[in-house]
């Protein structure tokens, strides 16, 4: 097998007769590429413009996060989880804190759970908005929708900064709660942003999702069937776009999500347009959750006082904890041997596993569709390569 993993096809697939005899053109798209998905490379074999084989190559951002996790203490790994999916540092922190809390049997007070949900839903808002912006600039919109999305993202990042001290790498969750309490003024500002967000969503959806070019480039492109999605371990909006009703917030009932009423949007066709619609509809549902959570947040402590910060040694055992991150199911598998460092620290990255079926989605489409499909998968290389 060659280093690229591409093998020669002996016959064209049925239904595609090539009247001209020729060779397949092997193109390496990436790792330096105008589309802003990070250092990701695809070895594509093209017959003219049609994709015949596609093999993703990654590892260009492999920073051995798991090895660092074995050498650092449990709390010492928390800042590294920020840098996994660098758009959504709050949800990464929550997934890790949840796994350690499962491992050590720690309870979380009410106010901390509410804060976690509020921050996770704010993260989901800015992640989905940025994704739509990036996808549109891949399609050739030259960055204008991205400017709109980043305008809203900056407002949410201001909230994160005033709460945790940093725009992107927040390092906010702790085992048994949160690091810093949110003042009443911060909650009022968050309420203001949530009240004004639907107006931005209306404008954004009208510009993007009802745009003729977007519709013709994304409908019936990259169809993913439900059986393939389940077998390939796809999670998140991609799975729900194929019609599978599986949202970890409803299934695992972690945090205080069962207290809030929100719907799960499902797609009918599983194509790229459905995946875009999923993100737009999920943003609306996040607004619903925030509208319920922000007024209801109770007073109280934000961290469990019984948890030791120094010399934190969970009992011997193992645990797998997962949450519904904006990109899919983010899970952490930890094996503890009773010491201050985990014996095995494993991240279950949603973007990595969602790339399993990239070849299946792109076969038979043109090169231009490949970028659109890749954009709708929503990958972040920090998570794919860890």
């Amino acid at each position, binding site marked *: 097998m060659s*280093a690229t*993993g591409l093998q020669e096809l002996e016959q064209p697939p049925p239904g595609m007769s090539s009247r001209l005899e020729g060779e397949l053109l092997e193109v390496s798209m990436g790792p330096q590429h105008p589309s802003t998905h990070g250092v990701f490379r695809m070895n594509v074999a093209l017959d003219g413009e049609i994709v015949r084989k596609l093999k993703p190559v990654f*590892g260009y951002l492999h920073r051995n996060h798991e*090895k660092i996790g074995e050498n650092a203490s449990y709390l010492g790994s928390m800042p590294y989880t920020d840098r996994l999916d660098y758009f959504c540092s709050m949800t990464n922190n929550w997934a890790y804190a949840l796994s350690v809390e499962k491992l050590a049997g720690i309870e979380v007070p009410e106010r901390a759970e509410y804060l976690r949900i509020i921050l996770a839903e704010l993260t989901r808002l800015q992640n989905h908005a940025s994704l739509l912006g990036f996808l549109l600039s891949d399609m050739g919109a030259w960055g204008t929708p991205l400017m709109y999305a980043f305008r809203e993202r900056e407002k949410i990042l201001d909230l994160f900064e005033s709460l945790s001290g940093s725009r992107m790498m927040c390092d906010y969750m702790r085992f048994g709660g949160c690091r810093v309490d949110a003042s009443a003024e911060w909650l009022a500002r968050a309420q203001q942003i949530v009240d004004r967000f639907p107006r931005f969503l209306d404008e954004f959806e009208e510009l993007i999702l009802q745009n003729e070019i977007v519709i013709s480039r994304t409908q019936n492109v990259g169809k993913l069937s439900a059986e393939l999605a389940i077998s390939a*371990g796809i999670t998140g909006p991609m799975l729900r776009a194929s019609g599978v009703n599986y949202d970890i917030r409803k299934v695992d009932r972690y945090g205080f999500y069962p207290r809030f009423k929100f719907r799960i949007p499902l797609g009918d066709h599983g194509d790229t347009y459905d995946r875009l619609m999923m993100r737009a509809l999920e943003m609306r549902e996040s607004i619903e959750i925030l509208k319920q959570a922000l007024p209801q947040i109770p007073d109280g402590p934000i961290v469990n006082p019984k948890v030791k910060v120094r010399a934190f040694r969970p009992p011997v055992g193992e645990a797998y904890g997962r949450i519904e991150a904006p990109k899919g199911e983010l899970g952490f598998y930890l094996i503890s041997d009773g010491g201050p460092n985990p*014996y095995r620290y*494993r991240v*279950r990255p949603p973007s990595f*596993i969602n790339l399993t079926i990239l070849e299946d989605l792109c076969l038979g489409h043109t090169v231009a569709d490949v970028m659109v499909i890749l954009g709708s998968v929503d990958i972040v290389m920090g998570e794919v390569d860890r």
Partner: protein
Amino acid sequence: METLEQIKNRAELAVPGARIEVIANPGPSKQSSFLLDNEHAVAVAKFLRDHPVLRFDFCSNVTAVDWLDRTIKKTVKVKQVVDGIEKEVDQITEEKIPGYLEVVYHLYSIKHKDGPLVIRMRTANRMAGAPLPSLTPIWRSAEFQEREAFDLYGIEFDGHPDLRRILMWDEFTDHPMRKDYREPDDYDWEPTPHDAVLEKAKKHYPSRPELDGAEKITANPQ
């Protein structure tokens, strides 16, 4: 979800010859797991996926773990004759467990919305190229994750459609996540080394044992 004992009985009935062991999880998370034997693992996995009551159709996570040779000390109460009187005395026995590589699969059921069911497979030893059956034909999500286990640990999966390195470059020969991997030495420029990094940087700087690790470090030489 049914209890592990019930699932184990079902599986052993359906796949004759399968040996499934329940490994208890001592911690608070209570996620105990099955240890499958390597010959029948694929058949048991297929049964777990296809049986209508279980329907574990979603493989969420595939993890490889490297266990070095361990000695476990156990205290056992033994009857001994001490000064003519028979007493119960604590005797510490050591059990040597040779090292192995292990692959852990976390399974969920999307149909019945339950889980996780944890299954494990172990290799016989820690030699490079240790073989294990691949569960990619059963759950496609294992495809990239098993490639990663091959790349970083050196476990070879029989039956994997495309087993090659995924995160490191192809010419790389080591398996970095193993516990006995030593990283290459490029610590020649360290402005403020301390602890483990200081040990590695000392090879490149002339050693000054009375100063290295000392509290007072000034920037201006005299």
